[in-house]
């Protein structure tokens, strides 16, 4: 019984033998297999072409997702701008013009004085951008115009991201260059995360909600909350609170809110130092910082240096002044991811503002002698954060 059963099984197995050359099907399959091997032998880039088509298909799927986000952000931006504009304004056209606007960085062949050239170009660009939004949204007040400018910048950011990825996708496809598309594919997880952050940021700026980047400003505001102080504008969109802390004069500097602005902290610090001269014994800067994967959001870390991002103009000016007058620079940063920085503020980040305010107070008491002054600069976007 056992032998007969095995023999009955052997028949279909023999039929399925590919290289057995016992029947017509096996012979055909063997030929196909050899032809396939020959294809790889005489057409060595065949496997690469195959891989390229897989990568391109994957990129196409993700690019389509980014396109959807870009259209959603553009639609929401347009709706919001229309709410604040007069009936006759050509909001569509003007928005498209702003989305494609650009600034040309100065020539760096001779780097002498490049920072001030860059500052001039960026200031002109920012002013023009804001002026365009103001003329388009005549119904919006001063604070709202600033937040709407931020909203258009978000729309511009996602629009550029989409166009850039599309460029490399099409370039890779046109030239069949696997190395171009491979690099884009490797970056795609991070780029998708940034695209999603832009989507969330659009809703935050539409409604004027505080974002993670505003934690430096929030901490500065908490430092002077409920205390007697003198408040005045020290530079464009930048205010300073003058107060006393156990015999030390404290200048708390921040961008004016609640509209979305970052101000000109370097100009503000320079003006205070010019007025106070050698009485300033420290500059304390508070800002959001990018965390590494695995680190907790809202973690407060202390360090040395100018804690400020952006194009580098403010950082350069603050460092120059601090070095010239030998003023120590202390920094407090609050960890967060790039997505958390531009999306509505998380609980852990908001709670960190109180912790930083306490730490700054302790630092001032321990490192600054009575009778001297200290500048505390809260860096970040003030959207949704008023004056305390």
């Amino acid at each position, binding site marked *: 019984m056992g032998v007969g059963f095995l023999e009955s099984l052997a028949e279909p197995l023999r039929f399925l033998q590919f290289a057995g050359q016992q029947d017509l099907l096996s012979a055909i399959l063997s030929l196909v297999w050899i032809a396939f091997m020959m294809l790889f032998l005489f057409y060595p880039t065949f496997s690469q072409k195959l891989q390229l088509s897989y990568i391109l298909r994957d990129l196409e799927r993700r690019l389509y997702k980014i396109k959807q986000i870009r259209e959603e952000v553009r639609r929401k931006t347009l709706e919001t701008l229309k709410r604040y504009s007069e009936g006759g304004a050509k909001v569509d056209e003007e928005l498209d013009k702003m989305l494609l606007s650009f600034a040309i960085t100065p020539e760096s062949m001779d780097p002498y004085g490049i920072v001030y050239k860059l500052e001039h170009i960026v200031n002109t660009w920012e002013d023009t951008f804001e002026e365009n939004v103001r003329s388009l949204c005549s119904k919006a007040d001063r604070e709202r115009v600033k937040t709407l400018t931020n909203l258009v910048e978000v729309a511009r950011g996602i629009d550029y991201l989409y166009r850039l990825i599309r460029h490399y996708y099409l370039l890779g496809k046109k030239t069949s260059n696997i190395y171009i598309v491979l690099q884009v594919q490797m970056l795609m997880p991070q780029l998708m995360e940034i695209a999603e952050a832009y989507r*969330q940021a659009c809703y935050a700026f539409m409604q004027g*909600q505080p974002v993670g980047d505003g934690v430096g400003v929030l901490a500065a505001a908490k430092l002077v909350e409920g205390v007697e102080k003198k408040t005045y504008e020290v530079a464009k969109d930048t205010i300073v609170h003058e107060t006393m802390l156990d015999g030390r004069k404290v200048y708390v500097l921040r961008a004016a809110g609640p509209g979305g602005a970052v101000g000109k902290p370097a100009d503000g610090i320079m003006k205070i130092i010019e007025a106070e001269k050698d009485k300033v014994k420290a500059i304390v800067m508070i800002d959001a910082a990018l965390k590494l994967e695995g680190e907790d959001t809202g973690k407060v870390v202390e360090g040395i240096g100018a804690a400020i991002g952006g194009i580098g103009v403010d950082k350069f000016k603050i460092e120059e002044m601090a070095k010239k007058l030998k003023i120590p620079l202390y920094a407090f940063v609050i960890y967060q991811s790039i997505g958390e920085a531009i999306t509505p503020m998380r609980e852990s980040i908001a709670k960190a503002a109180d912790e930083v305010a306490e730490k700054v107070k302790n630092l001032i008491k321990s490192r600054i002698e009575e009778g001297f002054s200290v500048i505390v600069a809260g860096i970040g976007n003030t959207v949704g954060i008023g004056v305390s």
Partner: protein
Amino acid sequence: MMFSVKSVLGNREKPILTPLTYLKCLSCETINSRPFKEGDYVFKETEEKCPKCGGTKMKIIGIYVKEPPKEAGKIKKL
């Protein structure tokens, strides 16, 4: 089949984060929260009724997204 399930799950849109506004009653100092409304900003004084003492003056002390408590042991700490 596996690819189609993955693509469907992958394309699902993430919900928009909606922060809460935290208000402190200027009479009894009770902290209340409600969903964020357009026009809210931190340190703004509003005329809203306190559910505890009935006071009409409140101050916004925070606007942030409430985070779910971290599940201990779900991800091994490295």
